[in-house]
């Protein structure tokens, strides 16, 4: 299990988001097998991340302890306790990409954005999260920015790609 990165930003959830969350939770509670994981997946769709405030609402509503909710939220790679950046960068560190040098690409990206893996820039614009196999190994090594995929990369390409998003 990787190290847990606790929430570092202030919670700014709106009343509409909370109403939406409660609606979703009611649906889940009425299903045949209510599950905390489904609740967290839906909550992350609403908020973009899972701050402790949201986890508390889920725990109360589902009638389980906050520890259990936190346990599930920190177990799966897809759940994040911090909001992703406006531009979320992810270098694939799957085997096919790794043997073709994606480790060096990750290092270059961290240098270009001045962020470490799993971090979001203070202005909320950029974040880096290494991913495990995007499934397009034919394009290795691969980097994903939001939904845009950049394949067959070399370390040289990284600054240009970063510059493109910094200019946006």
């Amino acid at each position, binding site marked *: 299990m990787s190290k847990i990165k606790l929430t570092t930003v202030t919670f700014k959830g709106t009343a509409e988001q909370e109403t939406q969350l409660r609606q979703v939770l009611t649906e889940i509670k009425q299903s045949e097998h209510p599950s905390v994981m489904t609740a967290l997946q839906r909550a992350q769709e609403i908020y973009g991340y899972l701050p402790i405030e949201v986890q508390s609402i889920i725990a109360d509503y589902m009638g389980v302890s906050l520890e259990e909710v936190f346990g599930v939220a920190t177990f799966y790679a897809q759940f994040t306790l911090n909001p992703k950046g406006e531009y979320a960068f992810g270098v694939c560190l799957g085997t096919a990409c790794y043997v073709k040098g994606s480790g060096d690409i990750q290092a270059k990206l961290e240098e270009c954005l001045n962020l470490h893996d799993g971090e979001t820039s203070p202005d909320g614009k950029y974040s880096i999260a290494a991913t495990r196999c995007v499934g397009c190994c*034919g394009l290795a090594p691969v980097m994903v920015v939001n939904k845009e995929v950049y394949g067959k990369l070399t370390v040289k390409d990284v600054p240009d790609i970063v510059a493109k998003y910094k200019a946006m």
Partner: protein
Amino acid sequence: MYRTHILVCGGTGCHSNNSGKIREAFEQQIIERGLDKDVCVVGTGCFGLCAVGPIIIIYPEGAFYSCVKVEDVPEIIEEHIVKGRLVERLLYHEKALGNVAVKSLAETNFYKKQTRVALRNCGVINPERIDEYIARDGYQALIKCLTELEPQQIIDILKASGLRGRGGAGFPTGVKWQFAKNQDNDTKYVCCNADEGDPGAFMDRSVLEGDPHAVLEAMTIAGYAIGSHQGYIYVRAEYPIAVERLKIAIAQSREYGLLGDDILGTGFAFDIELKLGSGAFVCGEETALMTSIEGHRGEPRPRPPFPAVKGLFAKPTILNNVETYANVAQIILKGADWFASMGTEKSKGTKVFALGGKITNTGLVEIPMGTTLREIIEDIGGGIPNGKKFKAAQTGGPSGGCIPAEHLDIPIDYDNLISIGSMMGSGGMIVMDEDNCMVDIAKFFLEFTVDESCGKCTPCRIGNRRLLEYLDKITKGQATLQDLDDMEQLCYYIKSNSLCGLGQTAPNPVLSTLRYFRDEYEAHIKERRCPAHVCKNLIQYKITDACKGCSACSRKCPVSAISGEIKKKFDIDQTKCIKCGQCIATCRFGAIIKE
């Protein structure tokens, strides 16, 4: 009737390379030119040869265009569709044949040696249209099962076929179904493991994206065979295209009465629900997967009781992998003997491998069991690019091992792979050349398993972390030969004491590289040298006499470690150098080397 079909690959590799926009461009221009009554554009699943994507195939000619760009669309329409002339420039060129253009997919070396069973519809049909699946004998096997066969007969066919689980361990599928059938319980579950976690394997994704109905049909057959009415597909949320196509497929099957309360009017009820996995490798382990479907942390639990007795929601459950299911309908239709006629004595049928890494034809290949590694790498894969030498093939992902050149001629099947210290796993096959350091690769896999260990049992949680520390010491040149022996001992402790498959197999990458590449480990320890020049602490960058003194490298160096006089040889200050490699990337004269 259309006179021409344009097939555009919509698999993940091609899709990431803009095939969606290419398809739109074709559709738009065909309408603009008033050809929409004659020409039909079809988005298909993966063709397999991802290395040269985006791929387009035009029938009836079967013309195989590779590396197509959006800008090429007008030319293809003008030349091929309107004038009936092949666009030679875009046809796939076979390097092995002296770079001649190959007209159709079937003529390529990549496809000639393949036998497609699980992937038979991938790249052939539009996965979003159930009618196309039905036109390719889809749901015939289900009809046969529900109207002609008793559940026990179905299981007997599977047993006779010799089909073994394609997800990793290779347990006989028919036997698994029999266990679940024998349980006396009103509620049983059929699960599909589509949580493809092996980094570097993507065959399950391709089946789900290219032929989702094959999985639905097989699960329904399984439901009838064991007496279950509910199925779950546990699929990675990171596979959005696969999830979308499964949703469409389930909706269409319900509409056609192929899922639901009264399937085909036989009174048999079965339905399938999707459960999204959230990215945890351990959830590929069957008990962990079921705990995760229940919504908890995906931690495994001891077996017995086996899932066939007490599985999901404490009910009898069978769990099979996507590729396993993709074989089932074909076995029912063509018979156990047909399936058993392919493969080796104990491993029947075909296996899909995801070829990746240092190989010319990266992509998906399906070969009969018993094909040799050499055939896969040299004939189908097209060999190692850039004139480099083959070093090892890694199979089985983080649970498997590295196969060296001396075993290239071993026929691939479950048992042979185990005997040489690797395993089949889900079918990832990563090729490595002389530039890859085997200690670094072992460390890469250990980092992965340490990261993915759920933490429930101590041997895996702490043992693997200790193992990683040894590897770290070795790659930094700080280890002793005693460490090497201790490390090997620790590997066996972890293997024999861990709770689930993840821990039991985690040391395999270390053990197999130790077995075949011990000299590389020893070079790191005794000579403080990384023979492949990968481990940063053990290499030095040097400027050779080829240096023209242009100063490009010194301007690029982020720590100002390079200095010299213009037009004279420059020099690197080793105490400052951080080994980032920027100088090598910058030098136009190849004057900087790693030692």
